């Protein structure tokens, strides 16, 4: 009797049909069989089954997409349409590395880190390597990244290197090679961590069975390294200095900031005052002790590097005075230029008295005549690269692809040989990549990470595996659309748990304030609040209008439609022409053009533009909003799109608007409920109240201007837009009465949609602003908010009569005018006092002799 397989074997066992590429090292398969250390993983996968694995992976991808957990921004310089953030693509099969092999890599990374540290200490110190000729002087003096002002900084422990990365590749003989050292500000450790979290959730049983070494320990060492670097301060304020929301590393920086518990800042959030670096917060300036640096060294201090812009003037001088620690210290990036790879073997022998454990790919310096001769002779088998690299810029790679290239390439090198190096190419190893159709081999590169520990560099057990179609070294920062994998370093023994949480007996100082909120974040949240409300009211007007347009009645029987169109035109939601009767005749009928108006990305006031703005503002505050609220918002951004058929049906729009209004309500709800009632909440909610009061006033003014005929229809539309129709009916049944409507929408403080309610809440927020408590008497913003609320409270709705309610000079008209003039003033005062810290900075006129 034969065994009956549970499922079709071919689909159940992913790994059986896998075939590596001949003559290339494959991580999984040695050409005849699966490598022994993979066997247990492969068995485990077979137990899960291909079908189940596929199901889990699909589910996980949905989760990933919704949470936006792993997101990567586009690179600087990429086309505008690619600038939006995109999902970071993970391949669901990790690369396995046996413990012994990893131990060797770790020893190699430690040694290289130590060596580069010594080289940096020398170049920024006595320069003995150059004086003695171990390093040719032109390597340093032609280096465009060798800024003389970084020399002699003497950072803590004289260490110029705290975070070190190496890009590793495995050649066909199975040996690992360093393709590039990264010392400026290596990125990717946050992505490695994200990949690990996703991967371990996908195959938790395998993860535990295989005794995979944990990454948390590495991040603990990062925190310890930070503390050691500023040992003078007991409770240092640590910030991660990012390049801003537009930069490719922003999401990773935000993720690391949350994970490590540091404040995420941008250069404009920091300033030097009295020889200290200060963080500009709502509560004032707070001293910063440690800056984990992302921008390149030459973008950090425009005072010292006068051709640079941005950055923090005088930062370097504060570093020299040891009043702040920047990690990596400024200037650390010079040794990541490939020209240094030429000298690594000699430097290792000279400085450490031992050979390199982890060698780099063979590199020739074209500035050396002998090397240049070799390069010219062997140019077909080499790649040519600029000798000096600037992190973040994609450096070109030249090689002979066809016969005609050869002479051109040689001429290019000979024109300025000092500026080029040549390298051997490594044919990278492959590892299986998953797809629904099965596994296929893809080339991999491993970015490893190391941090300066107590005595030596400590490597992360694992790293970021990047999948590449190309064989070239991965040059610029992690690219959009690039796929990655988790790297599992196996252990023979079970793994002890490590957590970033402190020991239970650690006493925590309780805090209730949010005074440390960077002003920029408060500004983002304020505008997020305003845009949320703007989107809500816009969607509601559109919905009310469309529900009329799609009803059975004739347009001529619905006088409110014309008024609503005029209102929307006035508010900029649709083309302004629709607000004027004569022009309306020239335009396509509103039923046909409304959808196009909604999704008009050229119009900043269109609903789609407002939604995009909300998404952008939330992205910029990623480290402040919860994963749930992000998930809702991501859904809105993805689903609020014109129908792909290109056919505009108003009823489709109505469904989209219904969803949008619900999602926005959910987003507002989650964001309000998940934020503590500290400054961060005040600014978000202040934005919402400000916008809701403004929009309500505008809406009323536009709807009630010389209304023609029966008021009933327009009052009903107004109540519907203001989400107060049900309340009204419960009070007054079907009868529409202007005074009663105005009471509900303007003066009734129990109605969460009324203007007076918004103003009352605004006053509460203003009273809670940081500066108010120290101020004798009332502040300007308090006076403005009180005056607004007072005006509305004193307003007598019973005196307003149709049809001249909004005739100029009448009480309602005067009130709305007052509201619309005072609210912007209040907004300006609050922005200027709390939000606008970042004035443009510029260089003084240069003096020309």
């Amino acid at each position: 009797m034969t065994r009956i397989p549970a499922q079709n074997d071919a689909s159940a066992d992913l790994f059986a049909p896998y075939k590596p590429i001949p003559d290339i090292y494959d991580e999984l398969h040695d050409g005849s069989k699966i490598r022994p250390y993979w066997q247990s993983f492969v068995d485990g996968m077979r137990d899960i089954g291909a079908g189940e694995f596929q199901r889990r992976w699909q589910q996980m991808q949905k989760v990933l997409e919704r949470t936006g957990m792993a997101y990567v921004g586009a690179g600087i310089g990429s086309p505008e349409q690619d600038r939006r953030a995109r999902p970071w693509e993970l391949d669901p099969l990790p690369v396995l590395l046996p413990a012994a092999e990893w131990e060797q890599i770790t020893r190699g990374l430690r040694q290289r880190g130590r060596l580069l540290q010594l080289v940096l200490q020398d170049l920024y110190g006595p320069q003995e390597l150059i004086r003695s000729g171990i390093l040719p002087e032109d390597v340093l003096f032609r280096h465009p990244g060798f800024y003389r002002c970084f020399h002699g900084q003497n950072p803590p422990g004289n260490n110029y290197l705290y975070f070190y990365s190496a890009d590793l590749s495995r050649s066909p003989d199975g040996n690992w090679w360093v393709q590039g050292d990264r010392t400026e500000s290596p990125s990717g450790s946050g992505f490695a961590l994200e990949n690990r979290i996703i991967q371990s959730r996908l195959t938790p049983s395998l993860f535990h069975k295989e005794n995979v070494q944990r990454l948390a320990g590495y991040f603990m060492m990062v925190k310890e390294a930070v503390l050691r670097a500023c040992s003078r301060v007991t409770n240092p304020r640590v910030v991660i200095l990012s390049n801003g929301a537009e930069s490719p590393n922003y999401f990773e920086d935000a993720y690391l900031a949350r994970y490590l518990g540091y404040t995420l800042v941008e250069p404009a959030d920091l300033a030097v005052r009295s020889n200290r670096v200060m963080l500009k917060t709502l509560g004032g300036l707070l001293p910063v002790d440690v800056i984990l640096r992302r921008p390149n060294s030459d973008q950090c201090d425009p005072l010292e590097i006068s051709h640079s812009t941005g950055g923090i003037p005088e930062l370097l001088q504060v570093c020299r005075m040891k009043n702040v620690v920047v990690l990596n210290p400024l200037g650390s990036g010079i040794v990541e230029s490939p020209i240094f790879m030429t000298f690594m073997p000699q430097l290792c022998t000279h400085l450490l008295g031992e050979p390199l454990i982890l060698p780099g790919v063979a590199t020739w310096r074209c500035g050396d005549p002998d090397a240049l001769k070799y390069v010219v002779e062997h140019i077909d088998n080499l790649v040519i690269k600029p000798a000096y690299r600037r992190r973040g810029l994609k450096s070109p790679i030249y090689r002979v692809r066809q016969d005609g290239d050869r002479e051109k390439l040689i001429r290019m090198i000979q024109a300025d040989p000092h500026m080029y190096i040549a390298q051997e190419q490594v044919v990278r190893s492959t590892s299986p990549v998953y797809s629904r159709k099965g596994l296929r081999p893809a080339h991999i590169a491993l970015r490893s990470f190391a941090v300066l520990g107590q005595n030596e560099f400590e490597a992360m057990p694992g790293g970021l595996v990047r999948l590449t179609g190309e064989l070239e070294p991965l040059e610029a920062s992690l690219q959009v659309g690039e796929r990655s994998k988790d790297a599992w370093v196996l252990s023979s023994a079970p793994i002890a748990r490590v957590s970033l949480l402190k020991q239970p007996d650690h006493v925590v100082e309780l805090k209730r304030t949010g005074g440390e909120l960077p002003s920029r974040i408060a500004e983002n949240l304020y505008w997020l609040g305003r845009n949320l409300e703007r989107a809500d009211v816009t969607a509601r007007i559109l919905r009310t209008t469309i529900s009329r347009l799609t009803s059975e009645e004739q347009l001529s029987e619905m006088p409110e439609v014309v008024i609503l169109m005029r209102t929307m035109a006035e508010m900029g939601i649709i083309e302004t022409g629709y607000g004027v009767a004569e022009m309306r005749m020239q335009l396509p009928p509103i039923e046909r053009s409304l959808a196009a108006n909604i999704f008009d990305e050229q119009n900043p006031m269109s609903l789609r533009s407002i939604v995009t703005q909300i998404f952008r503002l939330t992205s910029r505050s990623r480290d402040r909003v919860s994963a749930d609220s992000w998930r809702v918002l991501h859904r809105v951004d993805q689903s609020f799109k014109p129908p792909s058929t290109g056919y505009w049906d108003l009823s489709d729009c109505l469904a989209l608007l219904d969803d949008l209004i619900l999602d926005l309500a959910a987003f507002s709800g989650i964001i309000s409920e998940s934020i503590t009632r500290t400054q961060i909440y005040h600014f978000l909610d202040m934005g919402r109240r400000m916008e809701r009061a403004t929009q309500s006033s505008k809406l009323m003014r536009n709807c009630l201007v010389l209304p023609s005929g029966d008021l009933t229809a327009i009052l009903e539309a107004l109540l519907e837009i203001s989400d107060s129709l049900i309340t009204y009916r419960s009070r007054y049944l079907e009868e529409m009465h202007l005074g009663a409507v105005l009471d509900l929408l303007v003066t009734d403080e129990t109605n969460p949609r009324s203007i007076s309610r918004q103003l009352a809440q605004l006053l509460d927020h203003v009273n809670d602003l940081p500066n108010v408590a120290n101020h004798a008497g009332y502040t300007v913003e308090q006076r403005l908010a009180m005056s607004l609320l007072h005006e509305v409270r004193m307003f007598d709705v019973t005196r307003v009569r149709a049809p001249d309610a909004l005739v100029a000079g009448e009480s309602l008209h005067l009130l709305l005018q007052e509201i619309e003039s005072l609210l912007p003033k209040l907004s300006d005062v609050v922005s200027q006092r709390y939000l606008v810290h970042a004035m443009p900075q510029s260089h003084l006129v240069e003096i020309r002799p």
Partner: protein
Amino acid sequence: MRYQVQHKTTYQYSEPASVAHNLLHLRVPTTHRQTVEDFGVIVEPKPRSVVTRTDYFGNQVHYFALSEPHNGMTITATSRVAIRPVVPIASSPNWEELAAQGRNRAFPLEVRQFLFPSRHIRLLPILVEYGKAAFTRNRPIVEAAMELTTRIFTDYKYDSNATTINTPLEDVVRQRHGVCQDFAHVGIGALRALGLPARYVSGYLRTEPPPGKPRLIGADASHAWFSVFCGNELGWIDFDPTNKVMVGTDHITLANGRDFEDVSPIQGVVMGGGTRTMQVGVDVMPLEAKPAPAASNGTGQPPSQAQSQSQTPNRGQAS
């Protein structure tokens, strides 16, 4: 020769600036050819502190910040300095030998660093050609450098409107006009392209008033020239291509660097301030009568004065 030098820079803003960070290269150093007797720098409004340090090239720099709102600032540096008379140079090594010594690392590293291109001085092939015209075979370095100085003076037109600090050297060389900073860059570029260490010198120049006119306070300007390393024995020797002279007792050295960016007298970053205007006044006042002109330009001729240059009437020699 002793001088009192006052270098006063005034900035005025159209709107108040909240913060200004500044870095100054205004400290006149004591060198082999000059001794500083007194120095002081005064900033208005008064900063909380002024910090000094020595930069990579050995210049002393000052840092200060104004962190209260201000509508402008005035920086006044005053020095009293004695310049040693120039010792005539009887003979100098041949330039090719020096270039070979540079290649063979016979000079200290502090000198060799000036062999390389810098941000504003690319070693253009056209500069090699230009240099070769003066640097003929086996020529003594001082003689050749003086000819280069003379050639720049003759070939280039002084025009303070033709270039800005951002004009690349390529354009200066192509169009053959500019100011002293550009002429210094041309000379440095040619020397480095020939394999000779050359550096940029910022400083001051004593100027004579037009005949019959009194000396005007503040009429002078800061100046720049180049310096070439003439071997371990002779050291650095300075040439002023704007005035076709070897640097003598009329020149006061302020700072050394690879090009102007290393020694910019005032570097500053201001927050706010709207549009800004700047005024610079330099006043080089002799403290004793000027001795008879020495053979300071290696040619036996007295230094030519600005007034005699047709293309730079009145006060072209400084700047």
